[in-house]
């Protein structure tokens, strides 16, 4: 962009600015990566080695720490719980969100604007303010401490509605009208005309909400009490607490955290661009 100008700068200034740039990027990315690196190094140590701050690298990598977490702990079960619950929740959220977004964009009705304002206003409120009454509702429905309760209280994503609405508005209205002329129902117009054209919005919606549901902690931890229905964050937290009660084995704690974190990092490595679309795209709204 401003290459013409940079050429005018003296060589020393240019070298200095490159050094500065490398330094800033180096320090911040080391700061960012460090907890991950330290977690992996710590999980491969023995129980005594991990407590010794002078040993940076494990003398002999203790892979058994990982196998212990994978085969002798509840962590894999919690991960499975989080995985399938998140998939079910996101699938429902996509259907409800797409239908509402379709109505907002393509169905002309009188309360259209009011409805959008209501959705918008809901988005602005702190979700925690709903927790006490929502808890009571689930208690009355006998759904506390169950997967059903977690799922049924998260069937709508307001972020997703915004994201899809934004995508749908880019589609020429004529296309939907043409499909309607050909005899397609609104239902078919949504899934066979609109959806394929806004595939990237749907993928972004799915991935971002999958991750946030998978990681979700506060609400699921308030409504569940038995280990069988813990999602991964609460499960990890409870293992950690149980561990701190006795003589804590930090290597094992780090191994548990790593088993939870690493698959997410791998998933993220392959899907990064969809997240960037979701955050930096036209919507500018966070989930």
């Amino acid at each position, binding site marked *: 962009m401003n290459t013409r100008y940079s050429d005018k700068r003296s060589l020393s200034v240019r070298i200095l600015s490159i050094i500065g740039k490398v330094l800033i990027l180096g320090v911040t990315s080391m700061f960012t990566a460090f907890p991950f690196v*330290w977690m992996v190094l710590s999980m491969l140590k023995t129980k005594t080695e991990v407590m010794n701050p002078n040993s940076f690298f494990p003398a002999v990598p203790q892979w058994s720490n990982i196998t212990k977490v994978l085969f002798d702990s509840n962590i894999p079960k919690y991960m499975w719980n989080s995985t399938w619950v998140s998939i079910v929740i996101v699938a429902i959220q996509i259907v409800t969100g797409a239908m509402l977004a379709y109505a907002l964009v393509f169905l002309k009705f009188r309360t259209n604007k009011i409805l959008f304002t209501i959705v918008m206003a809901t988005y602005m409120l702190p979700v*925690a303010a709903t927790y006490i009454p929502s808890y009571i509702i689930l208690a009355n429905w006998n759904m506390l401490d169950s997967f059903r309760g977690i799922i049924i209280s998260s069937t709508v994503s307001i972020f997703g509605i915004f994201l899809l609405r934004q995508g749908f508005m880019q589609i020429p209205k004529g296309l939907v009208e043409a499909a309607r002329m050909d005899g397609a129902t609104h239902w078919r117009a949504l899934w066979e005309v609109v959806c394929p054209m806004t595939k990237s919005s749907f993928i972004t919606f799915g991935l971002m909400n999958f991750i946030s549901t998978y990681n979700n902690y506060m609400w699921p931890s308030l409504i569940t009490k038995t280990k069988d229905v813990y999602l991964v964050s609460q499960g990890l937290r409870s293992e950690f607490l149980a561990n701190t009660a006795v003589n804590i084995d930090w290597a094992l704690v780090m191994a548990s955290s790593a088993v939870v974190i690493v698959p997410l990092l791998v998933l993220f490595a392959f899907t990064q661009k969809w997240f960037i679309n979701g955050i*930096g795209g036209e919507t500018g709204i966070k989930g």
Partner: protein
Amino acid sequence: MSTKKVKRKYKKRYDKLPTVLFFVLPALIPLIVFWIYPISRSIWLSFTNWDFMTPNYKIVGLRNYINLFKDIRFYEALTNTLIFTLGTLFPTIIIGLILALLLVKNFRGNGILKFILFSPWITPTVAISIVWTWIFKVDGGIANKILQLVGMAPYSWIDKSSSAMFSVILVTVWKSLGYAMIFYLSALEKVPGELYEAGALDGASSWRQFFDITLPSISPTTFFLTIITMVNSLQAYDQIQVLTQGGPAGSTKTLLYMYYQLGFQEFNMGKATAVAVVMIIITATLSLIQFKVGEKWVYY
């Protein structure tokens, strides 16, 4: 008007109704049950003395609010929330912008750096806060080891009330840097190149270009990020729950954490919902400002 005409008009107005309802209700019903009703119910409960255990309760008017506003812990939580919010906001926005400025031009390794810087945002806060607890450990933790290596005195991190808030802020900034960076990257890419060309022709220095062209062009993003970071800070829970549980001595207890303790540990629902209403008012005010100011800006 004849009745026929009225009927036809009626029909025209309502024959779309089933379709509209079919498309709207699957989202609207849960939205009402788990968002709109609970919010209004919270506001209602804040005027009662309900204790969760007994089914009966009395309307006590403003008593919960009066008690709250007399409670020194409320002001401590309010101050903590403010410190936490501002302490997170400035580093996130400033470092996020610097990173975006350095990464906006493509170079070798650019992609991997973006990946590293953005990765904390998708990791579960609980899991990574456990890792930070381990890093922060006063004896045997790596953070103090590093301080020792560079010749600095050991720090108390999450062990003392004087340093716990700083540690929680550090973790939160660590987690949100990449998010701010991604936002700024997409804003910077949208600044028209001609602006810089014109600036260069006028002989503007890099600094002048930054302050006269870049900064004004991305100001809507800065504004949006400011609001969203503040709203998120107000709702931070996971890292506080794992790192400090609001302690030591209440030094990291924010409004949300106070709400959680009042509601789900002490079952003082009246007072808890009064805190919730305070949070609703703060968030709604911030969002309204965002909405009103945002309207004036042209996003491109």
